[in-house]
């Protein structure tokens, strides 16, 4: 109003008073005489104060504006500029956006939506940035998928998109969207930011706003401050610092999530199933951190696109390889030496990454089996690779693989070798700005091989499992924050449960070859992710089926105890004939209710079918364990998990906190008869029992994200129980009562702190406390054949002493140097890590051994068996250039 008056009043003389810094709006322009100025002249007056953004075609540059004499603020000028010209302005910081005035809505129809889609990549190496969020100023949001593809549909017009990811600097993108368009977003890493967080939600605040709950994500890059285990960054060992994730102590393969067994974790490396995740009997995992981009752990309820295991999904993605520069990184420590080479083959089009690792010393493990005579030596190696082709903006190809081997040998020439192999080929195709397709063909294999040269056991033993998976995954980005994901696939599994062949021709051993088992498992899934007011939801359904295929022989038993002697008939299935089919209906639901900006309530439900069971009657899994395909007698195990959580961020997202309750019930839990004989047994059904299980708990987590001191504290209170009940007492365990599973650990507490002393020096430390594992103590003893025999009654009624441990590591970065090569200056970085595992030399008890005290007396004692009782120092050197 006021501006209208100004317009008509004053006259001529032009001079302006420049603002003195602080605020742009302080700038005034003094007109001593009334004057007619062109629009472009007015723009020139404004430009020293603001950056103007406009499209030329909407500005009538030659049009004259009459200005009366007087004092004008910049805003006044902007108003005059827009007046009657069908344009409007908007001030944001030091920028002014000039845009066409919104026309009156002519038809009461829905505002027109347009889509912005494209890819998000790391500016440094061209790798896809996964899980970056894109939000508009009006809080419309989307995020990049597993391949860095994003699509966001917004009302036509001007938008400021903010792209966020924890490992990257935020980026703002101002676009005036008139029609759908694609955009390549590149993000810059948070280089050298010492308060960087490693175990994170997706982006600040994403930890709480993500619909799927119970997810932990670990990212790996050269600046990661993950605590070191024996001087090595380790994917799975690091996860033990999170609530609800435990293991059975040192020297035990795998991790246990929410009271589930290790075989209930679906471990995926670039979509390939990894059947055994450990090297060195569990001391470190098979994943080379230098080739890993990130790890997502779904503790219980995975979205519908994942399935196949009861307890969790651990999704590991390999890095793609730098498509701009060649890099070499590596390191050497007490455990292993590593080397990674990556670079472009065709710049910004075709890139590769190769990473190799090998144990440095042939580890002498007294710990592998203390009952065997002689010492065992062990070593391992692995290779990862990935090739990535950006064929054109709509097509991208990936090929990645892994080969790993563990080897042991004993004094008497028993050689063992085992390992995983995988090959993943993928094609990403963008149909249009809303529809994205990933096609994968995945192969993975696990094999175990043993040779024993001594008679009478001289033999070559092998077991193998192959998995082929062909799948299609569609992402359809609808407007209004909705994402549809759907797809399906065909999974083929072939298991060679065991062959035992003579090592040499003259051997006395007879060949034994168990029948190959084959199964096909087609599946379909559908997921809808979206937002309704304060409620975020992800509703999904997974339909699975599993068919074991002949040829096969199925034994019919006349008694439920199924002893080998009670076989009354055999049914023979021909090649290709379906022996047994199972169908699974697996609903998944996640709801997240936003209470306010900083807090969310989340609840979820999932059902999971597991069609592959690990045949293992030892307490800790072993590399010899065999995967069994569900068949006539071994039914798939089924779990239902419910969770409820409260997530809250404090102090402007500097502190993340969460509390989550869960309950998981299981059916068809596989258990084994006492004294089960599972070695090369073609009638494994004679050795197994079936039970039900339940596990439940509370998980608390607090994490500080920024500042010199970062870190997190986690606590879990939980219970994990099994019940094996039957009308026939022989087929029961513990009289059919619920009893604690081997991995029931009531309290789990961990604290991790990372303190940056200077840019080059940081210290990290972690402390872990876990309730002792359940164990069975003898109730009595007696003598038989001159041997003292402990007598046991009910299983797992006692506890080992509690486990606790403190680790410390110091990271010292070298001065950043530069190398001149081909006239180019390259950065060189290196760092040392010094770490101590088990600082105060706690004798953590792995198990109890019952022994006679000596030759003379008949006294017996219980000896605690300790795997790593001493403080273990280690040094690692890492470099990159």
């Amino acid at each position, binding site marked *: 109003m006021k501006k209208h008056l100004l317009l008509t009043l004053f006259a001529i003389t032009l001079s302006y008073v420049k603002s003195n810094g602080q605020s742009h709006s302080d700038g005034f322009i003094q007109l001593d005489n009334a004057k007619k100025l062109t629009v472009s002249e007015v723009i020139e007056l404004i430009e020293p104060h603001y950056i103007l953004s406009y499209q030329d075609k909407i500005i009538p540059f030659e049009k004259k504006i009459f200005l009366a004499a007087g004092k004008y603020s910049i805003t006044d000028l902007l108003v005059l500029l827009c007046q009657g010209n069908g344009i409007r302005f908007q001030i944001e910081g030091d920028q002014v956006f000039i845009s066409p005035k919104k026309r009156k809505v002519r038809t009461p129809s829905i505002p027109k939506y347009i889509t912005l889609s494209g890819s998000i990549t790391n500016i440094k190496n061209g790798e896809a940035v996964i899980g970056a969020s894109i939000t508009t100023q009006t809080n419309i949001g989307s995020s990049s998928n597993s391949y860095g593809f994003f699509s966001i549909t917004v009302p036509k017009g001007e938008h400021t998109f903010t792209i966020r990811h924890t490992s990257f600097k935020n980026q703002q993108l101002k676009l005036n969207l008139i029609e759908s368009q694609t955009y390549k977003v590149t993000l810059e890493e948070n280089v050298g930011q010492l308060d960087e967080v490693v175990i994170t939600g997706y982006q600040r605040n994403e930890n709480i706003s993500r619909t799927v709950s119970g997810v932990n994500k670990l990212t790996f890059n050269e600046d990661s401050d993950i605590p070191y285990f024996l001087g090595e960054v380790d994917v799975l060992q690091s996860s033990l610092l999170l609530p609800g994730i435990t293991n059975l102590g040192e020297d*035990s393969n795998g991790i246990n999530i929410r009271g589930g067994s290790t075989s209930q974790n679906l471990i995926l490396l670039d979509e390939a199933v990894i059947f055994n995740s450990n090297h060195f*009997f569990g001391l470190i995992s098979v994943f080379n951190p230098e080739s890993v981009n990130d790890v997502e752990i779904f503790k219980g309820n995975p979205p519908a696109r994942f399935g196949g295991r009861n307890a969790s999904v651990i999704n590991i993605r390999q890095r793609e390889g730098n498509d701009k520069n060649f890099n070499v990184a590596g390191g050497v420590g007490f455990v292993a030496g590593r080397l990674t080479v990556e670079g472009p083959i065709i710049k910004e089009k075709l890139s590769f990454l190769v990473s190799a690792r090998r144990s440095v010393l042939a580890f002498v493990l007294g*710990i*592998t*089996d*203390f*009952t065997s*005579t002689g010492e065992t030596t062990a070593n391992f190696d692995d290779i990862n690779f990935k090739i990535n082709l950006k064929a054109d903006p709509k097509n991208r190809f990936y090929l990645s693989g892994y080969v790993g081997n563990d080897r042991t040998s004993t004094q*008497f020439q028993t050689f063992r070798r085992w390992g995983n192999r995988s090959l993943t080929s993928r094609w990403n195709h963008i149909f249009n700005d809303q529809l994205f397709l990933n096609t994968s063909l995945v192969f993975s294999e696990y094999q175990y091989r043993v040779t024993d040269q001594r008679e*009478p056991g001289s033999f070559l033993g092998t077991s193998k499992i192959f998995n082929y998976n062909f799948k299609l995954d569609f992402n359809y980005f609808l407007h209004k924050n909705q994402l549809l994901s759907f797809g399906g696939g065909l999974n083929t599994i072939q298991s060679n449960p065991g062959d*035992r062949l003579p090592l040499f021709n003259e051997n*006395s*051993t*007879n060949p*034994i070859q168990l029948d190959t088992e084959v199964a096909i498992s087609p599946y379909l899934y559908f997921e809808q992710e979206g937002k309704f007011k304060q409620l975020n939801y992800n509703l999904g359904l997974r339909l699975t089926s599993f068919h074991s295929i002949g040829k096969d022989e199925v034994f019919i038993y006349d008694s439920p105890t199924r002893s080998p002697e009670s076989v009354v008939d055999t049914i023979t299935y021909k090649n290709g004939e379906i022996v047994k089919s199972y169908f699974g209906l697996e609903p998944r639901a996640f709801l997240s209710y936003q209470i306010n900006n900083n807090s969310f309530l989340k609840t979820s439900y999932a059902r999971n079918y597991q069609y592959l069971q690990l045949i293992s*009657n*030892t*307490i*800790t899994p*072993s590399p010899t364990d065999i995967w069994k395909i569900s068949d006539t007698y071994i039914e798939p195990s089924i779990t239902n998990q419910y969770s409820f959580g409260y997530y809250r961020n404090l102090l402007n997202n500097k502190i993340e906190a969460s509390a989550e309750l869960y309950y998981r019930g299981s059916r068809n839990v596989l258990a*084994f008869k*006492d*004294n089960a*004989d599972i070695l090369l047994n073609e009638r494994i059904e004679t050795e197994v029992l079936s039970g039900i299980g339940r596990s439940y708990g509370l998980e608390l987590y*607090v994490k500080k994200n920024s500042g010199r*001191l970062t*870190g997190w*504290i986690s606590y879990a209170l939980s219970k994990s129980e099994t019940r094996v009940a039957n009308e026939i007492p022989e087929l029961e365990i513990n009289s059919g009562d619920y009893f604690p599973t*081997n991995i029931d650990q009531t309290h789990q*507490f961990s*604290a991790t*702190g990372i303190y940056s002393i200077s840019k080059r020096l940081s210290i990290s430390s972690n*402390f872990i*406390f876990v309730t002792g594992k359940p164990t069975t*103590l003898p*109730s*009595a*003893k*007696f*003598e*038989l*054949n001159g*041997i*003292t*025999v*402990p007598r*046991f*009654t009910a299983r797992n009624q006692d506890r080992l*002493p509690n486990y*606790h441990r403190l680790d410390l590591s110091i990271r010292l970065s070298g001065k950043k140097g530069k190398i001149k090569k081909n006239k180019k200056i390259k950065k060189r970085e290196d760092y040392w890590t010094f770490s101590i595992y088990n600082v105060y030399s706690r004798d953590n008890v*792995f*198990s*109890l*051994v*019952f022994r006679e005290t000596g030759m003379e007396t*008949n*006294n*017996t004692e219980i000896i*605690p*068996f300790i795997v790593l009782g001493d403080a273990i120092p280690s040094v690692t050197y890492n470099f990159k250039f």
Partner: protein
Amino acid sequence: MKVLVLSISLLLLLFIISCENVISDLGVEENLVVIDGWVYDTEGPHEIRLSRSVAFESETNFTPLNNAVIIIRDDQSNIETLSQVAPGVYHTKTDFEGRIGFSYQVEVTLSNGETYISDFANLRPVAEIQRLIIEESSFFIQDQGIDEVFFYFPVAFVQEPIEMGNFYRWRVAKNHVFFNEPEDILLQTDRFINGNFFRNELTDYRYMQNDTATVRLESLTVESYNFLRFLRRQTTSLGSPSGTNPGILKGNIRNKSNDNEVVLGYFGASAVSEATEVVFN
């Protein structure tokens, strides 16, 4: 900083509460009847041992049961009565010999009147040890210089019969004393070697020059094989990383009038084949 203080104090708290003793109470004493004996196809006496189980921490592991009446009967209704020769130890007469193909059962009547019987145990034939040789091997001690230490181990040659389903136990003696630790329960099935002429290299048994090595092969039934396999597992691998959960070791003996009573032990029958060799100079 608060986080640090909090974590340190929690750490200390946990450290204090977790300094506890390794082993707690081992439960109540059961004192179950233990019957342990074996009949061989060799010259007697054959031994039955009677005792009660004791608490795990107790100083002894053998509380004898005396003044019991014990008979061994076969499936042809022949009866052999045993006599007590030491506390809890009962012997058959010297001329009592098990016979291949016969089945045997023990019946024990305790002084308190309770009667226990075993299942019938079949005495199966055993494959012959056709030859026993001694092989030399060595290892190095790398303490001062490299010292090669020689040792000797026995190798037995056996022709396994063509019929499938034979089970064996090996026993090894040094200078006529049998090794008798849990690790010395050496079991074998013919599953991998059926019908073959095979050699058993007993590399875990090491002899010096002039020692006498005795190797014995005993026949087992599937039941006694499974029992001994379980016994070995319960006494050797528990607590090791490859260990299983302990289980209830069930024998083949029961109270005649009370099926619910838990009776420990095993009664079996075996045929024996034996060979002896002196380690050469």
